[in-house]
C-alpha cells in the first residue's frame, strides 16, 4: 500500500525535476532563437577582428 506522504513526496519531486526539464527546454529554445538571429553575425565578427 502506498502511503499518502510518500506519494506526495514523489509528486513534489517529479514536479521539481519537471520544472528543471521545462527550464532546460525553454532555455534551449530561447538561446536557439538568439543564436539564429545573432550567431552568424557574431561568428563573422570574430573572423574579422
Amino acid at each position, binding site marked *: 500500500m502506498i502511503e499518502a506522504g510518500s506519494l506526495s513526496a514523489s509528486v513534489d519531486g517529479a514536479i521539481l525535476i519537471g520544472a528543471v526539464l521545462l*527550464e532546460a527546454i525553454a532555455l534551449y529554445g530561447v*538561446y536557439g532563437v538568439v543564436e539564429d538571429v545573432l550567431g552568424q553575425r557574431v561568428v563573422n565578427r570574430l573572423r574579422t577582428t
Partner: protein
Amino acid sequence: MELLGLSLAMVGLFVGFGLLIGVLFGFFGMGGSFLVTPALLVMGYPTRVAVGSGLAFVFGTSVIATLKHRDLGQVDYKLGLLMIVGTTAGIEVGKEIVVHLESLGLAGSIISVTYVFLLGGIGAFVTYEAVNGDGGDGIDHDTAEEPADADDIPDIAKTIQSYRVPPMIDLRGGVTVSLWMILGVAFATGLLSGFLGVGGGFIRMPALFYLIGVPVPIAVGTDLFEIVFSGGLGSFLYALDGGVDLSIVVPLLAGSAFGARIGSAATSIVDEGEIKVYFGLMLLGGALAVAIREIGKIYELPILNRVSLVLILGSALLVSGAVVYSSITALREENQTASPTVE
C-alpha cells in the same frame, strides 16, 4: 535587491559559474558533478542540497547539450540505450561494494584513493597521448556520419572491435562492435561510477572513444544522452528528500545553457587534438584537488578545502578558456585561408 531569494551578486556568480561549466559540458560531455558539488559544499550548503542540486543542474545541462548534439547528428541512441543497461547494472554492483566496504569501515579511504588514482591516471594518459601521440592531429569533429579513419581508432578499441562475438552491433561513425563488448565496457564504467558516487562522464566519454572506438563527437553526444537518464533519476531521488534547491539550479542552468551552445558549436570548429591536452590537465587538476581536500580532512585543515576548490575552478576556467580561444583562432585561420589578403 533579491532574485529567487538570492542577492543579485550571488545570482550573477551562479550564472557565470554555469556558463563556465556549460562550455566544458557542451564540448567534452562531462565536467558537471565534480565541479558544482564541491563548489556548493565550500559555499556552505548542506551535503544533501549540494549533491542533489548539483545532480539536478547536471540533468538540466545534459538535456540542453544533448538537444544541441542531436541537431549536429552526434547522438547514437542505440549505443546510448545499450550503455544505460550495462551502466545501471554496474552502478548497482558498485553500490553493493561500497556498502560492503562501509561495513568494514574502509569505504571513505579506499574510495578517495581510487578516485585520485583513476582521475589522475586518465588525466595522465590523455595528456601523454596528446603530447606524444600521432603528432597532435587529433580527430576531426565533423566525422559523425563518416566511417572513422583506421588511423584515428585507438589500438585498444581495434582489439575490442576484433572480437566478433555475435550479435554484432553497427554504430554511427562506421563502427561495428560486439554487443557483449559494449555491455562489458558499460558495466565496467557503471561499476566505477557506482563505486565512486560520481556521474561518470569523465570515465564513460574516454571509454567510448578509447575502448569502443566511437568517434569523439559521437562519444560526447551519446555520453550526454546517457547523463540525461542517470542525472534525472539521481536528482529525482534527492528531490524526494528536499535535496534540490531551485534557487541554485535556475541561475546555474541559465548560464550553462548558453555555455553549452558555445561548447557544442566548438566541437564542429576545433580539432580534438588541440584541446585534448587541456582536457588531460583538467583531470589531473581535479585529481590533485581531491587529494588536497582529503589531506585537509585528515589533518583538519579547512584551508586545504578552499585550495582544492580554487584548483578545480582554475582548471575549469583554463580549459573552457582554451576551448573558446581555439574556436576563435580556428575561425580566423579559416577566414584567412578562404580569402588570402592581396597587397
